[in-house]
């Protein structure tokens, strides 16, 4: 069965420190992987997708099919990065299929 695992419930770092939010998945085919973010009192929104290979707000994520991972990284955390982060997988052949989410990691960036 398809599954997304985010091993850390809470990640706390100081401003300026590097951040890595871990995501592992299980899927036998070719998945599409996403990171969604939810800031306080805001709705869930897409942060980045693996096929775009883009950097959003300084965050990057590389799909490692060998390790079935899609970790989210940022070299220097900012206080405004504090939020709930969800890793998600799409399995319906990429045609706007449903998303399978991990349980989320709460990132807290301290001043």
């Amino acid at each position, binding site marked *: 069965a398809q599954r*997304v695992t985010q091993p850390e419930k809470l990640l706390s770092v100081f401003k300026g420190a590097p951040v890595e939010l871990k995501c592992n998945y299980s899927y036998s085919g070719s998945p599409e992987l996403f990171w969604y973010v939810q800031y306080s009192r805001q709705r869930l929104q897409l942060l980045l997708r693996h096929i775009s290979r883009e950097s959003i707000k300084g965050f990057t994520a590389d799909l490692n099919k060998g390790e079935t991972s899609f970790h989210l990284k940022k070299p220097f955390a900012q206080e405004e990065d504090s939020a709930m982060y969800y890793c998600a997988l799409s399995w319906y052949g990429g045609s*706007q299929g*449903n*998303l399978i989410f991990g349980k989320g990691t709460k990132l807290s960036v301290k001043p």
Partner: protein
Amino acid sequence: DAGVTQSPTHLIKTRGQQVTLRCSPKSGHDTVSWYQQALGQGPQFIFQYYEEEERQRGNFPDRFSGHQFPNYSSELNVNALLLGDSALYLCASSFLLAATYEQYFGPGTRLTVT
């Protein structure tokens, strides 16, 4: 464009009752997906509607049903409510044939079953 809107914001129901939640998609979107998010969990896919038909369904019982209208808005109905149905219900809209994949989420409806 207000984006995806959902109503009501909060709802309190009694066990055994029925509830209807509503969703209006983002302008230009034709597909609506519903998710259930229990406390401390990630969203869990319920079902997806396109062209007024259920296109995909997650692992939810038949008590959960939906509908999509010609204007692409959608309803989620839950019958015979259980305490375990208490959750945040999220609606997400998208354009099925979009070149890039993105689902836009609404603010959610908080359902409490007592």
